[in-house]
């Protein structure tokens, strides 16, 4: 199980492995926002927390199809399924590896982008906290979507379609925490709810993912 985690992280770090690409995508999309909205910094600072959350979510989303599809294509997934680890464990480890290599760097880089979008000073702390609490749910839900679409060629877009509505609650609470933080309002309630969603998905969704994967390998 740890071997799988190590391998996945190692693969992500190798050339062509995709580490940093999610990050770069995030950076560029955030850089494009002022070009499309216009350079008005009062406007930008109002939408900054929301846009940063949305951008992080999209960057996560785009890297989802690397979680399982690569292993499927080269036949590793068949071999992993016959290896002596339970599938539930496998999907959990894969979600963890995705979080470590994709979501965590995003969280760490958000403050920099906050500057680009004139995020108010008091907003940084809660933005980072909300992302830290919320992104594990994104990885786990994403793994479920990846397991659903694993055998479908270039299923990336379908994967997005399936996963995005599932992301809605996380996005609502996460962006709400960030927005309230930026406006110096209390954040307890949405933060608690966000935490609850994360705990719930992390605890339960791997079973659904494993079930789905089993069907797909059949």
């Amino acid at each position, binding site marked *: 199980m740890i071997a799988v985690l190590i391998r996945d992280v190692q693969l992500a770090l*190798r050339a062509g492995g995709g580490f940093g690409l999610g990050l770069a995508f995030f950076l560029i999309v955030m850089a494009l926002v002022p070009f499309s909205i216009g350079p008005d910094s009062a406007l930008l600072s109002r939408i900054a927390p929301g846009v940063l959350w949305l951008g992080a979510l999209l960057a996560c989303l785009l890297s989802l199809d690397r979680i399982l599809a690569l292993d499927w294509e080269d036949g590793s997934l*068949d*071999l992993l399924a*016959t290896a002596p680890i339970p599938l539930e464990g496998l999907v959990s480890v894969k979600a963890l590896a995705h979080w470590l290599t994709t979501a965590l760097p995003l969280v760490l880089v958000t403050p920099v982008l906050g500057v680009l979008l004139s995020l108010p000073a008091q907003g940084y702390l809660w933005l980072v906290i909300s992302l830290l609490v919320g992104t594990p749910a994104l990885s786990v839900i994403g793994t479920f979507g990846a397991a659903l679409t694993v055998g479908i060629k270039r299923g990336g877009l379908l994967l997005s379609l399936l996963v995005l509505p599932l992301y809605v609650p996380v996005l609502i609470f996460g962006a709400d925490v960030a927005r309230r933080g930026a406006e110096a309002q209390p954040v307890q309630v949405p933060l608690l709810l966000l935490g609850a969603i994360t705990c719930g998905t992390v605890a339960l969704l791997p079973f659904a993912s494993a079930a789905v994967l089993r069907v797909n390998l059949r």
Partner: protein
Amino acid sequence: MELVVSELGVARGGVRVLEGLSFWLSAGQALIVRGPNGSGKTTLLRVLAGLQPAVAGTVSMAPDCVAYAAHADGLKVQLSVAENLMFWARLHAVHDIGPALEAFDLIDLQDRRAGALSAGQKRRLGLARLLVTARPLWVLDEPTVSLDSLAVARFAAAVEAHLRSGGMAVIATHLDLGLSAGRVLDVAQFRATRPVDGSLDEAFL
């Protein structure tokens, strides 16, 4: 330790391809599966490996005794030969990849990226994986494709060593493997006559 398959029926894409297939393999024996294209060899092997369920009959061996190798070798092109092998070894709690590298003449290539191997070299690496799984039953689908004659001989030697140590092997192929032992099973005779599987039969026909 033995493999007993009785009255097995297997289906692909909702169509039953083989039925009534029974055989028996004890420790140290190998079975060569033959049959024309599309006769269901690949499907049979996937069932034995536990990757898809049988539609009838039983297989006596649990899937976690089976090491499976198919057309796709499960190699990561970014990792080196040794790293690829090491991963599978760790997963199966085996510590030494030396013998596997040696058996398939991969020692010179061990630091090469797996993506920079030729077709036959990739295949050799895929086969070396079997040696680090430490599982008694090998289920192999056309293992010697793209191998040159030297490599085929090395493969035969590896299989025979595995059999001598009490292992078993089920190998589907169209080619001559150079194995001295090994019964042959032609699956063409088990071609299914009832076309779809039981439940569908009643439901939709």
